[in-house]
């Protein structure tokens, strides 16, 4: 059994918030964008940070939000 973090929009589960952020920014649909807007986050800003600056600033910023927002799910991974 492990703690998984659930994408607030779709069914995607990740073991780390940064992974979940990476998933999140990889989605191109409106639903994912809308949730960001509802959290006052700018998709544009996150991506721009992520791809034009070194490190993982975009992912990190979103991961921090997800730490609060993503539901925790217990799943048996064996």
């Amino acid at each position, binding site marked *: 059994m492990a703690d998984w973090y659930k994408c607030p929009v779709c069914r995607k589960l990740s073991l780390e918030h940064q992974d979940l952020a*990476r998933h999140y*920014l*990889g*989605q*191109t*649909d*409106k639903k*994912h*964008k809308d949730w960001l*807007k509802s959290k006052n986050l*700018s*998709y*544009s*800003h996150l*991506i*721009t940070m*992520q*791809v*034009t*600056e*070194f490190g993982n600033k975009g992912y990190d910023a979103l991961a921090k939000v997800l730490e609060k927002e993503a539901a925790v799910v217990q799943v048996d991974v064996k």
Partner: protein
Amino acid sequence: METKYSVIGKPTGNVDGMAKTTGEGKYTFDMYLPNMLYGKHVRSPYPHAKIISIDASEALKLPGVKAVITGKDVPGGKWGLWRRFRELCDQIALADDKVRFIGEPVAAVAATTKDIAAKAVELVKVEYEILPGVFDPLEAIKDDAPLIHEDFENNINATRHIEWGNVDEGFKQADYVREDKFTLFPQAVVSMEVHNSLASYDKGTGKLTIWSSTQSPYYLQLGLADALKMREGDIRVIKPHVGGGYGGKNSTMPDATTAALLSMKTGRPVKVVFNREEEFTTTEHRMGLHLAIKIGLKKDGTILARECKIITDGGAYTGLGATALYLAGIFQTFPYKIPNWRYDAFRTYTNKVWATSVRGFGAVPTVYAAEVQLDRAAKEMGIDPLAIRRKNLMEPGYEAPGQYKVESCGIVPCVDKMAERIKEKWPKLEKDEGIGYAGFAYMSGGIFNWIDTPYAYSGARVQVNIDGSVDLFTQAADIGQGHNTVAVMICAEELGIGIEDIRLHPGDTATAPVDLGAWGSRETLMNGNAIKMAAGQVKQKLVDLARAKLGENIAYDLVCREKRIYLELRPERGYSYYEMVEAAIKLNDGEPLIGTGHYTPHNKGMISPAYGMGIMAMKAKVDRETGLVEAKDVLIVHDCGQVINPLGARGQVEGSVHMGLGYALTEEMPNDNGLVLNPSINDYKIIRQRDMPQIELLDVPTYDPSGPFGAKEAAEATISPTAPALANAVFDACGAEFDSNCLKPERVLKAIREAEKNQKNKAKAKK
């Protein structure tokens, strides 16, 4: 080199060389059908605009005009090459609601002459409502940027994440870490033959035949099926000789859809030929992108981690751009062992023509960044650039977890051979000369099946006739790269006959089984395997018959070679090939001998069954006064498995270096708010023959178990090292660093000044 082969491995002139050089070989461009009409597009002058109305009444009044079509006349829907993801199938035959780039077709006319068609185009009145456009990927993703496709928020067309190992941990352990940023410019596809198609629709049967300058008859068939709302099988695509594709003829383009639509409307054959300006402004090109790359190494030069992030300027549609996005993240890791790797990539829609597959696709921009960065790191770490590469090379059996497996792998002997040869070849450099290196690798066709074909990846059919002559059918596409010759050589080798015994029937969807087309260096391995299997089926019949007639021990092996079928160890015991063929057909109750073959990769990872690889060294000279860079001399050591046709491989290497040098030095597509500023051969500078360096090509023979006779990718790989080797040579000569390709004199001069300043600063600092 002694060889056990009779046909393959021997330098062989192209089977269609004579026909092409005498002008007898027919390209779609040359074709004419009685009663034929000429189609021409009405194109948008705006990069982003709503279509309010289209009035064709004046055009239709012009004598000789037979039809005008608009988006309303298109029976089908959208299409694209990413058929597994229908939302990425975004191409349309004629814009129906809005236009997304300058030059997008909004209507088309068919007329009895080209001149009338051109005149008619001017008479079609289109009313637009201009929309704001967006032209840079970083602008495109802004929350307030205009949306180019409704369903794609922030204009993100596709994203890609690839990761293995533990990148963060890798960087932590590294003794040396550096980060670099690059902007790679797009590159045009400059095929000698423009996009053009000739369509003939039979209203009686509802079946379409189309001749087209395409890299993939099957992809065109699929695209047309979607665009025209027809069944694939009711569309026959014929690919005559093709005067170059380079990746730019994989998509179904408006030359084909419009020719088909106009033929369906008029019931007459219709030809659509793009002019050179349409070619530059409305057809696909290599992606431009912004890139950030980070590397971590041990003191001894061992790479511990690499991370790369890109955002690409996708243009208005998808094409094979989403595939390029993926491959960019794969081939940046080759031919090195990168234990920890992370890749984040975003493709954006912009109001420009779109980017797609182009020779060495995926690899070219990202390999540039990686190889250039490696030299900067080597220099700072005080390691020889060849040695740092040697340190990190892949070995046979190497795997990138979840992505690829490398079976044959001759990169280590390639680099060793390079090191040796360099010493003899360039013992001393002149002033302002430098040597740059770049490693390279490329796939032998792609395993990913985003086109979602239910067919085998390649097929072939062999028919052996009573006189021993062979008809060989395949949809595999020779687009100038010489696959027709390779196909015939493989068939001849397998049957033990000569290439003169074979008549090849390539590129016709009706007469041959499916092949996915000429992209990603797939034909030699994939179609070669299909051909070998098909020929092998017939060979088996001949061998069985000869064995039965000889009545020999069943353990004795028979071979087909030099038009005989005989006991391998008793060559005098056997029969003529011709005799066996005749007997076999008679035994077959008078049916000719048919073999069918196919190839689909299994258990070879996600990318490709095999990888050609190697190392390039470039000697260049820099004119410090003018900034002019001269590529003087190229040395390539290439592991490309069993070479089928050395003459063809050599030619393709030269072509790759030529196109790579254009990318390195001269080819640029300046764009002003969606307008391509240099849409002509005069203004878009490809490398002239007289500016080509000498190329020495050395071979490291390997045998790839996936390939026919051990063959794999050859020569496409050699485009990606060309630009970084050149940049590294300039760096070696004068320390100038570049954050882009296209080292035009003004960029070089600026970089030299910058380098000189840095050196002074460093010298000062030392003091």
